[in-house]
Structures are given as structure tokens and as C-alpha cells.
């Protein structure tokens, strides 16, 4: 049984140039004088013909660039905006959280705001009353419950607002980047709540700019581009193609035209790819898993000792270079033919992001750079399992994310 069924949803906004959306007295007069004069009305499709369905347990991330229509989709499903065309059916109790603390009023006390906000989120009075203590405990603002929330710190305010939201019990949950608030400890609580909700069989639609968050929380993703749904599938695939859109290569590059491939008369580059142990080309790798960078060269000159070097770069520059530490000092000559080198990058080394592979081949008898391709392929490093992050959900700095041992003792 589908809980969400969306059919051909289209939303067009009307832009009337500099003319405001509302009418003023001066317009009435103009209307009288030039009635029937064609107004230059432009319309802009924020969403076009979007259809999808969802079942219980689907935790769907909605991704796309600014203006792709993510928020419009969520607002239509939340019934804040009316679709221009199309229809949808939501089967079950719906809660939508487009912001935390909707309807919070600074003059009201924490207690009063819990009741008002709970009602705004669709809870019944008896429901709020029975969950009241739990909400207060979750927020951790017990001592200030009867103070107006204008005296709260912004952190307390947010925690209280989220605590109410976390205690609604919908069957369909619509979420808009509300997780971007609060400190790390609190984010962890929230992520936990959402993961738990997904396991309980809720249908969740989660709009976010953060591919990381979508990867952690969702099992399916929708990719929107200029109002259209261009991809719907497993979260890893969709996020990978989102990150790659705009990048030239993805996971593999084959140099078809050998004459123009990078290299010289000694050696030329044939192919570069990122792959798993099973030999499958990867556009996205899981940082908790080992993966290989595979490079194929055609060697034409058997007399030169060639020395390949592979470098991984992140968006700030080179992350590390690697050479075959087992070969002799300056490489060795190889009989002409095609050779494949694979370097295995261990699990728990990279931190998430987009990486590129640079490939170069040198010889050192007389120093010579035979081949260099600084941007051979690119791939995405994803973090979907605990790994070095554990259950921490906040921002983690650094270009690498090794999984290290921690000890703790009381002194």
C-alpha cells in the first residue's frame, strides 16, 4: 500500500514584472482606463510534472540545487501551496516540519508554547498532555518552563521547539532541513529520532542541501533539476550522480584515441578507473570500505625505467601521492605491451567529499615526465555508516578521517 502517491504535480508561479502580486488603488484607476490591455505576465514553472510513489519505510531524500523545486514540492505536499496541475494522495497521518518552532510566540511561556506549537503540528490536547513530560525532558529546559521564551537563549529556544516536533507521531513526515540547528549533542538526538522513525515504518520525505545528511538518513533519493524529477532511486546512486552532474568524468575514463591520449612515444595512458575489490567501477565509494584506483598504460619503449605516480586530490589540493614502494629506486624497464596497475586505498582513510585522481609517469635516468593527466577521473567519497564518526552527527573537520582507537580512564 502506497502512503504517498504523487501524479504529475506542476506548480507555476506568475511573475508580473515589477507589478506587485497585490493590487493597489492606483491599479484600480489604471484598470478602468486601459481595461483589457494585455499585461505582460510571465509564468515560471517551479515544479513540472513530478510523479512518484512511496511506501511505509521509505526514507526519501529530496536533493537538487537552489531553485530546483525541492521546497516547492514539500510545500505542496504540506498543503501550503496549491498545485497548478496534478494531484497527490497522502495515506496516513501527516506532519510537516518546514521549520522548527512555527507559531512560537516570544511573549508566551515555554509551557504555553508547547501546547500551542503541539496544536499547530496537529496534536490533540490529550496527546500533548500525555507527552508533556517527555517533551520537557527531551528539551532540557525544565527550570525555565514558566518563563516567557523571549528570555531563553537561542539554543534553549531551538531545543524546546524541536522537542515538540520530535514527539508528533505521524505516519508520513515531511521535513525541510530543520536539522541544521542546534549543537552537536542535540543533532545526534534528532538524527537518532529520525533513524528510529524510519525503522518504525514511517514514510519520510527529507529535503536537504546536505548530501551527507541525505546519505546518512535516507534509503532512497529524488533528484530534482529545474523543477523536473530527473532521478529516483537508491540514495547512493542518486547522490553520486547529483555530485557528478557538472563534472566531466565519473569513475572511469577510457582514452579511445591512443594517439592523442596523455603520454609520449615511450608510454601512453589507456584507462583510469575507480573500482571495488569485486572489480566493479565506482562513481561513489564508501569511506568505510577499501577501493582501488586502476590505471592502464601502453608501453612502447622497453629500454626506459618507468615510474608511475598516482595522486588523490580533494577540493583544496593534493591529499596524498602514492608510488609502488616495492619497485626499485627509479622504476624498472618493462617489455612493450599494456600494463595495469592498481593501488588499493584502505578503508577509513578519506573524509567525505569529491576527489580527483591525477596520474603521472616519470623516468629518472635523465629526468623526464612522460605522461601527466591531472584530472583523470573524479569520484565521490561517501560516509554512510558509522565508521570514525560513530554516532556523532555534527560537523567533522579534516581531509582524512582515520578510524582511531580511543581510551578513556578516570584519573
Amino acid at each position: 500500500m502506497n502512503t504517498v502517491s504523487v501524479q504529475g504535480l506542476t506548480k507555476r508561479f506568475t511573475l508580473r514584472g515589477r507589478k506587485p502580486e497585490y493590487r493597489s488603488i492606483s491599479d484600480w484607476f489604471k484598470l478602468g482606463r486601459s481595461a483589457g490591455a494585455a499585461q505582460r505576465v510571465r509564468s515560471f514553472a517551479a515544479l513540472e510534472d513530478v510523479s512518484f510513489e512511496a511506501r511505509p519505510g521509505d526514507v526519501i531524500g529530496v536533493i537538487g540545487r537552489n531553485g530546483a523545486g525541492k521546497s516547492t514540492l514539500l510545500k505542496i505536499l504540506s498543503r501550503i501551496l496549491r498545485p497548478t496541475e496534478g494531484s497527490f494522495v497522502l495515506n496516513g497521518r501527516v506532519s510537516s516540519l518546514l521549520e522548527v518552532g512555527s507559531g512560537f510566540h516570544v511573549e508566551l511561556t515555554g509551557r504555553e508554547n508547547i501546547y500551542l506549537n503541539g496544536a499547530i503540528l496537529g496534536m490533540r490536547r490529550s496527546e500533548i498532555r500525555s507527552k508533556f513530560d517527555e517533551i520537557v525532558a527531551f528539551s532540557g529546559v525544565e527550570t525555565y518552563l514558566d518563563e516567557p521564551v523571549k528570555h531563553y537563549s537561542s539554543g534553549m529556544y531551538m531545543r524546546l521547539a524541536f522537542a515538540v516536533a520530535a514527539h508528533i507521531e505521524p505516519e508520513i513526515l515531511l521535513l525541510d532541513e530543520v536539522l541544521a540547528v542546534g549543537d552537536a549533542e542535540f543533532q545526534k538526538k534528532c538524527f537518532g529520532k529520525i533513524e528510529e522513525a524510519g525503522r518504525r515504518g514511517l514514510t519520510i520525505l527529507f529535503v536537504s542541501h546536505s548530501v551527507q545528511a541525505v546519505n546518512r538518513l535516507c534509503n532512497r533519493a529524488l533528484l530534482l533539476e529545474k523543477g523536473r524529477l530527473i532521478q529516483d532511486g537508491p540514495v547512493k546512486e542518486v547522490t553520486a550522480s547529483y555530485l557528478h552532474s557538472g563534472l566531466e568524468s565519473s569513475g572511469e575514463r577510457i582514452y579511445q584515441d591512443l594517439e592523442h591520449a596523455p603520454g609520449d612515444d615511450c608510454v601512453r595512458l589507456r584507462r583510469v578507473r575507480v573500482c571495488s575489490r569485486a572489480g566493479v567501477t565506482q562513481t561513489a565509494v564508501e569511506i568505510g570500505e577499501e577501493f582501488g584506483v586502476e590505471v592502464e598504460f601502453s608501453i612502447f619503449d622497453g629500454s626506459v625505467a618507468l615510474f608511475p605516480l598516482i595522486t588523490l586530490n580533494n577540493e583544496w589540493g593534493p591529499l596524498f601521492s602514492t608510488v609502488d614502494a616495492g619497485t626499485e629506486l627509479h622504476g624498472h624497464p618493462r617489455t612493450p605491451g599494456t600494463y595495469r596497475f592498481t593501488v588499493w586505498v584502505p578503508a577509513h582513510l578519506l573524509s567525505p567529499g569529491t576527489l580527483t585522481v591525477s596520474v603521472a609517469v616519470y623516468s629518472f635516468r635523465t629526468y623526464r615526465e612522460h605522461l601527466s593527466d591531472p584530472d583523470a577521473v573524479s569520484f565521490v567519497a561517501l560516509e554512510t555508516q558509522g565508521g570514525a564518526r560513530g554516532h556523532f552527527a555534527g560537523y567533522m573537520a579534516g581531509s582524512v578521517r582515520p578510524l582511531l582507537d580511543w581510551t578513556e580512564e578516570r584519573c
Partner: protein
Amino acid sequence: MIAVKSSRPPLLATLAECANYRTLFFFLTIRDLKLRFRQTAVGVLWALVQPLMPMLIFAAVFGRVLRPATGPVPYMLFVLSGLAPWAFFANAVVIAAGTFVSNYNLLNKVYFPRALLPAAAVSACIFDWLISTVFLLGLMLVQSFRPHAGWFLLPAVLLWGIVLAMSVGLGAAALIVIYRDLKHLFPFLVQLWMYATPVIYPLAMLPLRLQWAAGLNPMAGVVESYRWCLFGGLLNGQLVTLSLLSTAVMLIGAGVVFQHLESDLAERA
């Protein structure tokens, strides 16, 4: 189950949904009520002061200069019995009219039946009318009026006034979203409306043949019936009937205007 199509939902479905949001209606009313009196020195006493102040002014100025004939009822009481329903009505509709524009952030982030906002604003003002009615009855007892059967009809008049205020508030709130000039014009129109209603002058000041026509103004019916309940005496049946009819027209008109705009409020507010 929620099924949404691109066409506007029928009015009855919209109204039926309001019933599911009783809790929200209750808490919005409580919010509006609390916010009006919170952190003021005399608190709820303001509900009484609001009609009392103009009463003193009108009694001092109008009562001395024009000396309207109000029969056995002292002019002071007469004015208060007009201002009690009027202060409620004027306060309620002006506050309700601004609710869509001032709650834009809520409209744009959460779904709930939109009519709840002006309706809660109106119901938060009911309290004022109750207080001033009790005060009036007390004042009458002090002035040795005897309680009579008409007093028991007061709830019906209150209900009439509430329905009227909700209609006008709802219609105005929706129109103001589209015609922003109304936001500034509306309080002024309401003020003018008071002078078109027998609040500070008796209906008897109009020529007898024309008194029924005052019923075109639905508030005239509310005020006249309220007075009749309090003091007894004569009630112009034609006027009341006409006022009831014009209340129905207002109710339907507001419903139509509101329904036309409801589902696009977030876009236009």
C-alpha cells in the same frame, strides 16, 4: 487520507476540516487572549475600560449638547449598552482583518484551516463583551432596574454578534491580502460604521418610516436587540428581520470571498 487536486476544495470540505482542528482553535484563542492582557498593570480590566472610556466621553459631550431622548434609560447607560456590543465588534473585526497578513510566517510554514486565524481573533474578543455585559447588568441593578425575561435572551444576541463579527473579520482578512490599501482603510471604515449604527444615538432620532432601513446595517439589529434584551421596550421587527437577512448576506459573501482565496493565501499574503 488527504487527497489534493489542483482545483479549489469545496467550501463545505474546508469547514468540515475546521472541526478536526478544535485544539488549535482553542489554543490560538487562548494565545490571543493572553497576549492582549499580558504584562499590563491592570490586566483584564482593560476589557472593561475600553468601552467605559468612550462612554464617559460621549456622555459628557454628546449627552449634554444634544440631549437625546432615551426614555427611561439614563443616557450614560444607553451609551454603554451600545458601546458594549460595538467595542466588541470593532475590536474583533479590526484584529481579525489583519491576521492573514500578520501571520504570514505561519501561513507559509504550516498547514491548518486558514479560517482559524480570524475566527480565533474574534473569539478572543468575546471575553470583553461578556465582561462589559456583566458590568452593565450590575450597573442596572444598582440603578434599581428589575431583572426581566429579556436578560435570558442575551446569549442569543451575543451569538448573533459573534457570527457577524466572524463573517466581517474573515471577509476583510481575505480581501486585505489582495487589496493592501484596505489594511489602512478598514479601521477608518469601521469607525464610520459606528456612526451609521444606533450606538450613541437612539433609533428614535430617525424618522419613523425610515427606521426599518437602518436594518440594512446588520450591526443595527445586534445593538437594538441587545438594548431590548437589557431594557425591554419596543423592538422594530422589520429592522431586526432585515438585519438578520443582511447578516446572512455578509456570512455568505465572506464565505465566497474567503473560499476563493483560501488555498492561495500563502502565495499572496
